[in-house]
């Protein structure tokens, strides 16, 4: 007796349709990934404009346009206006190195420089008094020589971008960059010998990846200094907190993300998958008479009905457990912590109740209707009402009870309605376990959500449709 039963279980679990549906459930569980994204990278963005300036028989500007990774961007329109006794404006498009060279052959005077960089993502502008440094001495305008950019290969890291020119705007090939990490105060600049060589400047613009050790405390600072050849005094220095180079990930509250995902995504798809799977493993075979070809083998009606039910339940329960496992792993990867064990078990139990309820309902329905079309139609209708339109039904119920959405009456109607709907069972579990709903803190017990009530409701939904189905399968045919 047991062998044919197990054999049918194996056959159902390994059927193509069930395997495809299980694979779909697992794929859906990967949809948690976007919910764990913490948007630390503004991909496609532009770094702030970098402008160097020096005087030498006129006014010279050198600008660099780059993306968030520090890669040069050509074709960017850059305008600089000299506002003084007379106004002068030049607009130059950056070359393949992201550079634009400006020369204003105008008399020395007090000027204000106004610049505007026009990028596909918008404009950025600055306005500064033009300093009167000694001729030929290069000065950075508006932006520092050192600036952090996103590491191309690891978005959680920042690299160091250096934009500089030698005297009179020459290539800074004689310059080198050093860095040092200071883990505790006092933070003072270092001498060249106290620092770690990072690289040399071959161009006006370079990006370096400083090997900053992991596990630094929050107060650590990183110093960068630019040295000209044979000079132990830094030409330019930059000081960064560790957060600027190793930004901390925003904290993810794993249970909140998981609760939203389980209720909103898995809780939505699991009933649909179960309906399709139940139709495929039992409803279709029963209504097309295919089951008779199995029933003529040495197996009882009860045995066949139970084997099909249990195997469908088992297949989707395994899928649910695997799916929750995948979600847990993704959350652990993204947030560094697994879901609390009791919460995970509660969610699995809630999803298994949904699977059992819908499996039982579809199996049961297949004994009440006469055609596959009708069974499919009713099943899909059931799904649409219980999953899609339940909110509308609650809204109307709330209005009938004289309450408003979000009011005590509204919340009470919502929670009580969940007891009557297996597709919303997970919401009850979530509400009870997390003590919250839709972001608003509530006390579930005051709305009728208690552990005994949930357990009883779960047992009823898991068992009642199955018992009725079994009765029909044995007695009615």
């Amino acid at each position, binding site marked *: *007796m047991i*062998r*044919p039963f197990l*054999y*049918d279980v194996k*056959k159902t679990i390994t059927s193509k349709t069930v395997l495809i549906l299980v694979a779909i459930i697992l794929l859906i569980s990967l949809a948690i990934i976007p919910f764990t994204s913490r948007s630390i990278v503004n991909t496609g963005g532009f770094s702030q404009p970098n402008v160097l300036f020096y005087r030498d028989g006129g006014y010279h500007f050198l600008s660099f346009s780059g993306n968030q990774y520090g890669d040069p961007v050509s074709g960017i329109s850059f305008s600089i206006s000299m506002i003084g006794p007379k106004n002068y404006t030049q607009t130059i498009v950056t070359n393949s190195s992201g550079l634009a060279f400006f020369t204003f052959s105008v008399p020395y005077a007090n000027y204000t420089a106004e610049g505007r960089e026009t990028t596909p993502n918008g404009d950025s502008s600055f306005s500064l008094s033009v300093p009167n440094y000694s001729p030929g001495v290069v000065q950075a305008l508006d932006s520092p020589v050192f600036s952090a950019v996103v590491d191309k290969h690891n978005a959680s890291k920042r690299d160091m971008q250096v934009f500089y020119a030698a005297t009179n705007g020459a290539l800074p090939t004689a310059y080198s960059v050093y860095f040092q990490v200071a883990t505790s105060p006092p933070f003072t600049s270092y001498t060249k010998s106290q620092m770690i060589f990072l690289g040399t400047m071959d161009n006006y613009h370079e990006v370096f990846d400083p090997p900053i050790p992991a596990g630094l405390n929050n107060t650590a600072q990183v110093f960068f200094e630019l040295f000209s050849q044979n000079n132990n005094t830094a030409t330019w220095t930059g000081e960064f907190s560790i957060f600027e180079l190793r930004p901390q990930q925003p904290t993810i509250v794993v249970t909140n993300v998981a609760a939203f995902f389980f209720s909103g995504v898995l809780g939505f798809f699991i009933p649909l998958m179960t309906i399709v799977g139940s139709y495929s493993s039992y409803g279709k*075979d029963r209504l*097309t*008479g*295919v089951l*008779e*070809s*199995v029933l*003529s*083998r*040495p*197996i*009882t*009606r009860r*045995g066949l009905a139970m084997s099909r039910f249990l195997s469908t339940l088992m297949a989707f329960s395994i899928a649910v457990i695997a799916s929750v496992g995948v979600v847990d792993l993704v959350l652990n990867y993204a947030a560094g912590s697994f879901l609390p064990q009791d919460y995970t078990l509660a969610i699995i139990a809630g999803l298994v109740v949904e699977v059992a309820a819908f499996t039982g309902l579809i199996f049961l329905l297949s004994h009440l209707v006469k055609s596959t079309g009708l069974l499919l139609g009713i099943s899909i209708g059931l799904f649409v009402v219980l999953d899609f339109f339940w909110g509308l039904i609650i809204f109307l119920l709330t209005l009938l009870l004289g309450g408003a959405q979000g009011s005590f009456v509204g919340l009470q109607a919502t929670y009580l309605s969940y007891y009557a709907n297996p597709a919303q069972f997970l919401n009850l579990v979530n509400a009870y376990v997390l003590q919250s709903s839709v972001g608003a803190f509530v006390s579930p017990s005051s709305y009728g959500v208690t552990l005994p009530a949930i357990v009883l409701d779960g047992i009823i939904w898991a068992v009642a449709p199955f018992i009725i189905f079994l009765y029909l399968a044995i007695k009615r045919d």
Partner: protein
Amino acid sequence: MIDGHDITKEKPEASKSIGWVPEIPNFEPNAKAWPLMRYFAGFYGIDRADARRKSKDLLASVGLSGFENRKIRTYSQGMKKRFSLAVSLMSDPQNYLFDEVLNGLDPEGIHFFRELMRGQKRVNKAILLSSHILTEIENIADRIVFIHRGRVIKIVTREELAAYEGEKGVLRIVLQTASDDGVSYLRTLGGTVQVQGNEIILSDFRGDSSQVNSELVKKGVLVREIKFEKTGLEQYFFDLINRTDPHT
């Protein structure tokens, strides 16, 4: 009861002892024959290796070699019946139930099933063949159960049927010319006489046709042709239901 097992109370045991081939086999249309055979083999406790071998052998024995990995929905009606037969042979049961298996089969298929049933008979297997094709039953069956309006009205053995056929039939006589004397004589023999010109058909005739011929000649009636045809199972059935239910 099947081999001592109550089909309602001991369904698995009873099912093991019977191989069923329905009139319209209805298998999972998207299943392939060989895997489906192996699936069914599992119900009989046949291990995997045996199931593979046996499935292949049985499919070959019913003429489905080369079609093992085709989906059932691509099979013709006859192929589905052959497949169903292969499945029913899986457990080598002592009993078979062939339900109108001959319906819709081509002559080759009918021949195949007829020979298969004879083969199974030879190895002492019991076959319950339900059919409306009485000539086939007449050719194969050892015992015939007549069911009319859901009720068993008669069970006859092959010997009883042969005896019935031996003494009763239709006598067809073609005279040289129509003759009232000849017709008058034939009416004395009992049965029903139909006259169509010089042809006379005497139904329910019991007797010796050569003696009828001699008597007609003695009466000066020239006989061009005389032929006796046994009544057959069909007529037997009609007679039977006329007796049990004259209003039919």
